[in-house]
């Protein structure tokens, strides 16, 4: 073997080694975060922690029931607002690829995706909190819904664009009207892609803190009134982690761990949905 070929094989080995090394390097920060938060948080989590309110300073124990319930309510409300809008808009965009309206709404959705979450929070503050004169869970949900919207719209649009035209033609040729073609053929065939978009958008907003700071605001007590301030996990973490009390730090670590488990679970569900409900075309 000539020296030259040997040299090239060597170079190729080095390159291969480098790609492997750097892929491992990418995983390290995630692992580090996971291990660190789980170590700090998992021991705090138990039934008491999940079902009780935080205790005042000085008393140990206490839980995050208000934040957990608050997060669930705020996110559910945001989903109820964003998902129908997002899916309908996505359907419009995929059905009318070339219309002026589609061009502009696509542009707006793309820009919306890039708007910093704190700006969306301010907008919700001026739209809802100021006029009604009160911080509220609803205003927080609206802010989060605006953040979900672009993800749902784009994933719906992209999923539906991948479906072959022949599918739609088959439906039209059987004399089906537009709404039935969409509801009975197009949506069922794209359901896995649409649902995973929805799941990812929920995972995306779960940890958002900035837009909730001046909308849902936070609440040390258990509240289910969506027109009043409400606690949520990220708000709790933000407030308690920056406090000077050790007991509160513990709550923040536990809440972080819950948040992490929540997001991981959503990601796993998304993977399962794409695998299970995928319609074989």
């Amino acid at each position, binding site marked *: 073997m000539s020296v030259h070929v040997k040299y090239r094989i060597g170079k190729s080995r080095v390159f291969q080694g480098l790609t492997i090394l750097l892929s491992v390097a990418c995983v390290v920060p995630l692992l580090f975060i996971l291990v660190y938060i789980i170590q700090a948080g998992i021991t705090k989590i138990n039934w008491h922690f999940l079902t009780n309110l935080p205790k005042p300073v000085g008393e140990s124990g206490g839980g995050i029931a208000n934040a957990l319930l608050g997060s669930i309510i705020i996110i559910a409300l945001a989903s109820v607002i964003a998902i129908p809008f997002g899916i309908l808009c996505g359907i419009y965009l995929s059905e009318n690829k*070339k219309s002026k309206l589609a061009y502009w709404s696509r542009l707006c959705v793309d820009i919306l995706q890039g708007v910093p979450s704190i700006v969306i929070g301010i907008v919700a503050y001026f739209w809802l909190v100021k006029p009604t004169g009160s911080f509220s869970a609803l205003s927080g949900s609206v802010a989060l819904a605006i953040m979900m919207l672009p993800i749902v719209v784009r994933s719906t649009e992209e999923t539906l664009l991948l479906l*072959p035209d*022949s*599918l739609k*033609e*088959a*439906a*039209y*040729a*059987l*004399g*089906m*009207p537009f709404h*039935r073609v969409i509801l*009975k*053929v197009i949506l*069922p*065939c794209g359901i896995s892609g649409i649902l995973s978009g929805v799941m990812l958008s929920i995972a995306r907003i779960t940890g958002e803190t900035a837009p909730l700071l001046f909308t849902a605001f936070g609440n040390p007590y258990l509240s289910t009134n969506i027109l009043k301030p409400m606690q949520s996990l990220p708000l709790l973490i933000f407030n308690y982690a920056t406090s000077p009390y050790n007991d509160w730090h513990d709550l923040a670590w536990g809440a972080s761990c819950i948040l992490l488990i929540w997001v991981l679970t959503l990601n796993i569900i998304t993977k399962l949905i794409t695998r299970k409900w995928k*319609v*074989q*075309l």
Partner: protein
Amino acid sequence: MESTIVKAVDYNAYFGDNHVVKNVNIEIPRNNTIAVMGPSGCGKTTFLRGINRMHELIPGATAKGKILLNNEDVLEMHPIFVRLKIGMVFQRPNPFPNLSIYDNVIAGYKLNGIKLPKAEKDKIVEHSLTRVALWNEVKDSLTKKGSFLSGGQQQRLCIARAVAMEPEVLLFDEPTSALDPISTSTVEELFHELKKNYTLIIVTHNMQQAARCSDKTAFFYMGELVEYGETKQMFTNPADIRTQNYITGRFS
């Protein structure tokens, strides 16, 4: 005398400014099989899709003239009504991938929200699948998804789906071009069977297929209908030089 079921009068179809089907006049007799032939891009598919108003689904596509179904102008009817009377089978088999074989056959009812008693549905499914010679092959796997069948079986399933709606006319756009020779001959046998109850209009590039299956042949060239007559006559003694060139393979 045979009665006319479909008649085109000065029919023109456009994609934007592109005049694709030019002034077509044709009369199609009931319970006949018509082959539509012509070089690629001459407007066969466009004409076929004009008959059941599928043409207008494409943005920018327009049509002028008349297409009469039993002396009624389909361009004046509601397209949904037209498509229930004129079924269509596409070049590539396109069963609904989210539905079982059973539901695919009755898709025209099910997806249109027409409720039928179970016994009635069973009857339609068995009858339609028997019609397309698929019943024996799939009767034990009716609950399986339609997309698990072979290409030829899928195409017959699509024909069954169209037949189940009991249309008067069936349109086929190169129905066997994606199939192997054995599936092709099964589908061709089907044409003979279906002819008893329906009028078939078949676009094909396969001259043997046209000769074997059709009573009449229409030859299109650059958007015009240049010759239309008995298939035998067309293949043995074409009147138009363009038809003659095409049949003898003298087009590039």
